[in-house]
């Protein structure tokens, strides 16, 4: 085989890698991540294929599960327990709440186990460790977009089948949906990275994560509108960074009134902190956790 200088490594740009013990915490290998962007895309693909091979319905599962969940929620919480949906059609209300929540839930669950479940890979080869959780976040984003389409489909279907009954309608905030998705993704990724770092060190956290997520759904306005929280407990919703995002989705897609900019500002602040703490912790652990994991 003739020696062929590769495109990424022309002879005139010398590469120099220095390996030494690092002291800092917030060392972010953006450049490495960009260099390995092909890997990120292939990991997304891997995630997708492994999820849906040998299934009959394939990606349809991303459509079916939230729809059925919404139907069950509408029956249990709407009919049986009589939880208010602020006048929004229950199907749309729950489907919209689940849209955001599912993305958060799936991304956090997937990323929170990164270090542990990829031990075999991380102990044999080097690549920017962030590539794996970033790919997971993006692959879940694509699932969330499928669910957004599902929501739109159900919306149109209900408007046609129940003419005049559906009062809800999208607002100008729809334009902010990309921001909401990115925000939610960053929050889930950041939290997932923190939990991943803890799980790598203390196995206790693998039990904690699903548990926290379960409880968090009940303190987040997924199955009820934020307006139904009594005034004296409203602060709980305010400090929960997920709530304003779920309400944001509803305000954008259904025109509800539960979105408050002040809550959103706090959520943004928390997200930025969580995101960077997560990246710092994760990379700190990824540097040598193979020695003791």
């Amino acid at each position, binding site marked *: *085989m*003739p*020696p*062929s200088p*590769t*495109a*990424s*490594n022309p002879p005139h740009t*010398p*590469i*120099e*890698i*220095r*390996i*030494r*013990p*690092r002291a800092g915490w917030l060392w972010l290998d953006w450049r490495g991540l960009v260099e*390995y962007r*092909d*890997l990120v*895309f*292939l*990991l997304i*693909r*891997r995630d997708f*294929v*492994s999820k849906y*091979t*040998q299934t009959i319905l394939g990606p349809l599962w991303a459509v079916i599960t939230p729809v059925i969940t919404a139907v069950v929620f509408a029956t249990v919480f709407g009919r049986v327990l009589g939880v208010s949906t602020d006048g929004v059609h229950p199907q749309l209300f729950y489907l919209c709440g689940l849209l955001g929540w599912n993305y958060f839930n799936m991304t956090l669950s997937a990323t929170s186990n990164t270090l542990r479940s990829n031990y*075999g*890979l*991380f*102990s*044999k*080869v*080097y*690549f920017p460790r962030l590539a794996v959780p970033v790919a997971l976040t993006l692959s879940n984003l694509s699932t969330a977009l499928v669910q957004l389409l599902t929501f739109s489909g159900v919306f149109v279907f209900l408007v046609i089948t129940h003419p005049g009954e559906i009062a809800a309608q999208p607002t100008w905030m729809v334009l902010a949906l990309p921001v909401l998705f990115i925000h939610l993704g960053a929050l889930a990724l950041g939290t997932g990275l923190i939990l991943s770092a803890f799980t790598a*060190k*203390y196995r*206790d956290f693998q039990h904690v994560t699903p548990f926290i997520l379960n409880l968090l759904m009940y303190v987040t306005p997924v199955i009820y509108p934020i307006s139904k929280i009594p005034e004296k407990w409203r602060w709980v919703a305010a400090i929960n960074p997920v709530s304003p995002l779920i309400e944001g989705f509803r305000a954008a897609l259904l025109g509800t009134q539960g979105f408050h900019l002040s809550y959103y500002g706090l959520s943004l602040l928390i997200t930025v902190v969580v995101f960077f703490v997560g990246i710092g912790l994760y990379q700190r652990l990824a*540097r*040598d956790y*193979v*020695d*003791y*994991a």
Partner: protein
Amino acid sequence: MSAPIIEVNGLSKRYQLGHFGMSSFREESEKWMRRLRGKPPLDDRAPPTEREFWALRDISFSINPGEVVGIIGRNGAGKSTLLKILSRITEPTAGEIVLRGRVASLLEVGTGFHPELSGRDNIFLNGAILGMKRSEIASKFDEIVEFAEVRKFIDTPVKRYSSGMYVKLAFAVAAHLEPDILIVDEVLAVGDMQFQQKCIGRMQEISRGDGRTVLFVSHAMTTIRRLCKTCIVLQGGRLHGIYPAEEAIDHYNQNVGGTVLDLDTENLPRAWGSTGEQARLVRIRTVNTRGLFFGEPASIEFTIRVRTALTGAMVGIAFNTIEGGRIMTLDSDASGDTLDLQPGLHTVTLALPSLPLSPGRYYCHAAIGRGRHMCDIIDNFALWEVAPGGQNDWESDRSFGGCRVRSLVTHESLPPGAQ
């Protein structure tokens, strides 16, 4: 002379022993609370030196571009740790490494292969994990498939591959990396003999042809001898030295010789309930302390302790390949002569004018008995390496493998037109 492509300065790596890492959250938080209150930590009963272990201590060396360097040493000498740090899998505790070029490390073949993905997808995924760009992989795709001999199955999920196909595909991807520095662990110890030869050939091509720098860890001195000009010898986490390959292998052999070529077999486990009561093999050694060499004289000496007289006895040794097939047996009564052994200690030596085993590693089994009755059988008492012989090295390079014995050759030229 350009700058060295790899520079290692004062590299050290410390591991914590004991329950570190398995500590629960409670213990850790207690430790933190004590630290916050300014109290001394609780669990420092053992002095720190007993709870830590230096896998590498103050290693320094440099390697020039285009060199192929072996890293050898006994188990626990620090080879794997050194590779892990060079591959950026873990961090050093102290010291620094400068790598001037693109690095790819192969500590395992098929890292990141996903069973559900097709061969095609796995080539791309594995290539990307090893640091190749999509476009690079695409341009070498056909070569890789050709090398792996799996074209027919390229769109089949690899979980349906035979293990041989799987390994071949995995190695094919790795073999087509084009880094400036290639770091290879003993991954060549996979696959059948023929495929191993192909892999070694490819390694030679990479290093000789393309002028890449290769770092190669192996226990197989045969491979080291074929691939490397110089070797780094590690001993107990420290640098023993950097020597030309032959000299390094001598150091290595001296280092392990006491345990490998000369064995105290008194207390090894016995096979098949053979007791070793009447007669027992207590020591087995090669008479040439430098080792066993293909095509050169070889003598194996057995020391036997006899309790009650044993007449018509035989002593034998058998060699199995790594894959487990028996390839050669030597027994003292093959020529029809048996041994009469009176109580006491005896030595019996089996000598061959020319060792027919081709270079490689063999599991050795030994036995003493009489007719069909076996008094003492020791399975797997050693893993002996047969090294290439001195003069006729091409014979081992040609490598028909197996057991090469002389035969009586007759030759006759047939007249034209004969059937």
